[in-house]
């Protein structure tokens, strides 16, 4: 495994560079928005990747609630944390696109607001994990993760159900897209998914190590004379 990680990291970096080239050079310039439309090649794949990670978080949380496996709890934590980072990218790049196109940074429309609320739910999930030390924390967090997952279909379908300022979906919507644009979009999504996988892998190893260290501290405090244990 230790040899596979660097190889996959190099492959992922290569794919990210190729995806960037596709987004900035190969994909044609959109007629009305111009080059600013190319933000779409980072904005949309970031959201899709975050949603995949939140569904992984949902599945792992359900598994934890049923089987109480620590590995499932770790997968849930890691996927939520990396998902929050990807959704933050989506929330930051969206207003940067909106300012030149809509003339405003932000509007409280259904899609934007529901995305922000979903992000805040997962941030609260991470804060619960970080600041609560009780034995029930993973169970409470898993329950919160189920609530967070319920928001994701709402975010995705909000542009179908409600009148919003947000553009219609690229896939499954009424509009059409140039095949070169679609290719650039899908390549960027693939690159982001690979990158997210590598980040999750690193974060999982870190979490495993952290739990091993915590366990070692607990063992040390049992073995050490009274008052000398650190934790």
């Amino acid at each position: 495994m230790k040899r596979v990680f660097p190889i996959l990291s190099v492959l992922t970096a290569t794919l990210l560079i190729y995806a960037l080239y596709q987004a900035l050079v190969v994909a044609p310039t959109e007629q009305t928005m111009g080059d600013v439309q190319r933000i779409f090649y980072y904005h949309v794949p970031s959201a899709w990747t975050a949603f995949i990670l939140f569904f992984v978080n949902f599945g792992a949380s359900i598994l934890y609630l049923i089987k109480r496996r620590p590995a499932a709890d770790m997968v849930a934590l890691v996927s939520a944390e990396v998902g929050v980072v990807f959704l933050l990218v989506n929330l930051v790049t969206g207003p940067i696109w909106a300012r030149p196109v809509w003339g405003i940074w932000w509007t409280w429309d259904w899609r934007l607001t529901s995305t922000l609320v979903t992000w805040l739910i997962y941030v609260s999930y991470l804060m619960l994990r970080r600041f609560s030390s009780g034995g029930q924390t993973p169970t409470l967090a898993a329950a919160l993760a189920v609530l967070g997952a319920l928001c994701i279909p709402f975010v995705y379908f909000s542009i179908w159900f409600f009148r919003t300022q947000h553009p219609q979906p690229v896939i499954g919507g009424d509009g059409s897209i140039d095949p070169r644009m679609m290719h650039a979009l899908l390549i960027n999504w693939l690159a982001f998914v690979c990158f997210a996988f590598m980040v999750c892998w690193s974060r999982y190893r870190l979490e495993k190590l952290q739990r091993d260290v915590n366990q070692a501290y607990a063992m040390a405090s049992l073995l050490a004379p009274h008052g000398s244990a650190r934790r």
Partner: protein
Amino acid sequence: MTNGYLFAAYAATWIIHIAYLGTIVSRYSRLKREIGELKKPAVTSSVSSLRS
């Protein structure tokens, strides 16, 4: 001017990702130090299972 927004969006994306990767590396370094402390003789038996 629109190129400025494009650059800002792509730069913000990688600043966020690199900052997050930085926190992972920093937490990993701190854990390595803690493992070093734990591997002192008094607690060696309890940490023998830790990966180096």
